[in-house]
């Protein structure tokens, strides 16, 4: 397997002797990754420490303030909302649920993107024309509008259904990206060498090209995940998500529906928004970190790795 990010600069080559000198240890990428892991751990380990049954309607007293406020109850540290749901329990249930939507939708989009992008870029000709035309057409469609229409008709019983709907618009971006990468890669020496060696096309794609595209794919995936979470949150905030199991957007929808702003119930809407800001920031850091990993020219000395 050839490595595309070779560098003949002796100064840089000398920096690569330590294992701590890997471009994957990009500070932005690592910071983002650590934040995501922490957020994920909160969601995954939360059920061990907190009763998630409290995330459902009528499980707790209504309208309790957070524990630090007058009238707060330690049994509900972040307070409760007007349908008798504990805010902390809702976050514990909602975080993995929202991350799952993002991961599933973006992964499907990426898988479709790899398949179509590789065919279009490698095979060329009429398959490329067809795939490119469809991709370019879909990319111009205002997806949120279409998603609103679709989710109004599709029964949103769980987050998987939401993820599948979002995946409908998650593939054109990766398809274009991968097609352009394949177009450049197929002209490289190592690919031509493999071709001359009579390596089958599928093998060339999987063993020669995909590994060389990993940073781009990873950057596209993290961007896709945060895009899908944003899309899902938007739909849920509109009241189009699953009704029973809490997700970050559903919590916001419940707050909007219950006039939280005018009632001064800050704890109904602020916690999910803080979590969303943290998640988006983390994915953004990961994406630009991966961009720098994939593109050495973006890396400056002493400016991250």
């Amino acid at each position: 397997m050839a490595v595309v990010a070779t560098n003949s600069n002796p100064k840089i080559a000398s920096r690569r002797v330590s294992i701590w000198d890997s471009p994957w240890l990009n500070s932005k990428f690592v910071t983002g990754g650590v934040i995501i892991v922490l957020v994920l751990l909160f969601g995954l380990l939360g059920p061990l420490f907190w009763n998630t049954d409290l995330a459902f309607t009528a499980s707790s007293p209504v309208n309790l303030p957070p524990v630090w406020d007058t009238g707060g109850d330690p049994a509900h540290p972040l307070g409760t909302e007007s349908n008798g749901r504990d805010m902390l329990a809702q976050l514990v249930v909602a975080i993995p649920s929202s991350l799952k939507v993002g991961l599933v939708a973006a992964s499907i989009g990426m898988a479709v993107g790899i398949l179509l992008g590789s065919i279009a870029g490698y095979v060329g000709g009429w398959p490329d024309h067809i795939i490119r035309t469809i991709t370019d057409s879909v990319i111009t469609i205002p997806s949120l509008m279409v998603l609103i229409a679709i989710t109004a008709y599709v029964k949103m019983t769980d987050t998987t259904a939401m993820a599948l709907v979002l995946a409908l618009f998650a593939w054109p971006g990766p398809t274009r990206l991968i097609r352009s990468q394949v177009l450049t890669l197929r002209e490289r020496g190592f690919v031509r060498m493999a071709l001359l060696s009579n390596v089958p096309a599928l093998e060339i794609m999987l063993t020669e090209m995909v590994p060389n595209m990993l940073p781009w794919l990873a950057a596209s995936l993290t961007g896709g995940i945060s895009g899908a979470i944003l899309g899902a949150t938007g739909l849920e905030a509109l009241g189009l998500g699953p009704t029973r199991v809490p997700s970050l957007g559903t919590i916001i929808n419940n707050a909007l529906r219950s006039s939280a702003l005018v009632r001064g119930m800050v704890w109904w809407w602020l916690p999910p928004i803080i979590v969303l800001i943290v998640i988006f920031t983390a994915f953004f850091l990961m994406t630009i970190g991966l961009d720098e990993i994939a593109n050495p020219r973006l890396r400056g000395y002493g400016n991250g790795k």
Partner: protein
Amino acid sequence: MKSRNFTISIALVVAFLAACGGQATAPTAAPAPAATTAPAATAVKATDAPKATDAPAATVAPKATDAPAAATATTAPPAAATNPMDYLNATRAETMIIDQPYKLETTDNWNPFTPGNATGWGMQLGMDGLMYLNFGDGKYVMWMADSYSSNADATEWTLKLKKGITWSDGVPFNADDILYTVNLQIGNDKLSNHFYWDEWLSKIEKVDDWTIKYTLKKPNVLFGAQRFGGSLGVFADTFVPKHIWETVKDPTTFKNYDPAKGLPLGTGAYILAKVTTNETIFVRNDNWWGAKTGLAKLPEPKKIVFSYVGTEEVRTQTAIDNGFDSMQDITVGALQAMLAQNPKWQAWYDQKPYAVADPCARIVSLNSLKKPWDDKDMRNMLSMVMDRKQIVDIAYEGSTTLAAYFWPSYPSMKPYADLIDKATYDKMLTPDVTGAAAILTAKGYVKGAKYWAKDGKDLTIEIQVPEDFIELIRVGDVYVEQLQKFGINATEAKLGAVFYDNSANGNYEAQSNWFACGSINEPWSTLNTFAGAAAPIGTKPKGPPIDNAFRWSNKQYTDLVAQIGTTKLDDPKLTELTKQALAILYTELPAMPSAQSRKIVPFNNTYWTGWPTSANYYMFPCNWCSVFAYIITKVSAVK
């Protein structure tokens, strides 16, 4: 790639913020009862009705026949003190602003007899009713009607109109307009009331300009209340001007909308001046017949605006800033925030429950043609799981009372409510999950790790709710959770207009709704909603007593209800008949009572005062009902 990601992120953030800002969930509202709902009947005899306090003005009211047949709505009001359109420039202190919880979808259909019309956006002030029922004392305020009476067997009814009533173009309103309207509805099955007349009316005759005689096909002791009092006594029947409509080619497509020509034309104190999708503006007609004849004072607001501003959050903030003088139904939390920030607002009560009891009890209707809900034991099982106290505490945040009736728990309904078997009724006030589990076990269901299942299939139920109706959604939220905890995989489907189509066509398992609405002070109207055959799925029901939307059928029950409908309210037989019908209804449970509804209708005393409250109960406080035309005459400007 960086810039691409950045662009996508920005675009999604903008889209998300836009989505948040445009959150579509509408606050609890108070739609009029479904078209299939029987109108309320009342026990008030015509002789009980308060007499009009006025003498008709002798100087007005030329005979209808004197009016030119081809008169148009452009006819100038005689001796108009002011051009009503000048009131479009009225100051805030001269203007009343009424909150609307929905956008006006169709701005140009003001035909009161066709579906989807805009008349709810203020024509309650543009058209007068014959009489209005005050739920407070159970008596009628006679408005355009002077009196009504019936013969001994309730097959002939006579309506007498007040003299001196005019349309807002100055043309007299009289018996000809009523005959014209009724005949128009009889002659066209696409217009409202057609099927009612088809079932009951044999003949309508004009006795003189102010007297109309209705001859019925069969006795109906409630006819006067139903047709002269209108739906529930607060949604009056509408009449249209013969001199305008007789020139209309097709009344089903006629829009009745041209403010420049005075359309829609009514007899009310206000005239439609301007319409947009967010507001309608009505201006006062200083020549209103009611003030001239001494029926009531000329309402003080020169301009009345019906305004939609957005979600409940925005509505409440607008109210706090005195942008409204009256609101439609809002939630308890929003009201409390409002009262805390603007003490000029008032609710029906000064403290919890704040709300006035609504005449339409909430129910969960079950489709008796869909398995397994065709089995009464399974329907009873669902009712046993329902924790009605929790619904009051959570869904209503304590703003309503605990009850399990299909009708409102008004004092006037107590004699009939007491006929329900006490043991049966009391059991409904507390959940009985053990009993529910026993029924499922007997039916062959086995409790798995999470859900009850039979033949390897989990027991599921989908409860449909109208997406813009917060109250019903919250009832659905709580009940779904109760079912889930018990082991039934219940889900909630929030639906738009299709909710009502599904109800009509039977495309539902369960719905959280109010479709047994009707009774206020007699039992027949609510009981009748369950009468008749089960309308086949996929077919719209013609309505009881032919068939019903609950898809439930019980001949014995239907026969009993038919007898109740022809039994006078003071007849001792009524008690036994009602008791038998209720016994069948509460055993079969084609629907189950979920909650007593309530309305929080706040009023603002910053610019206007004299609003109805529990301490001053002169009329049901409903700004979307016809009775608002009465309330507006009782309200005064704050000096």
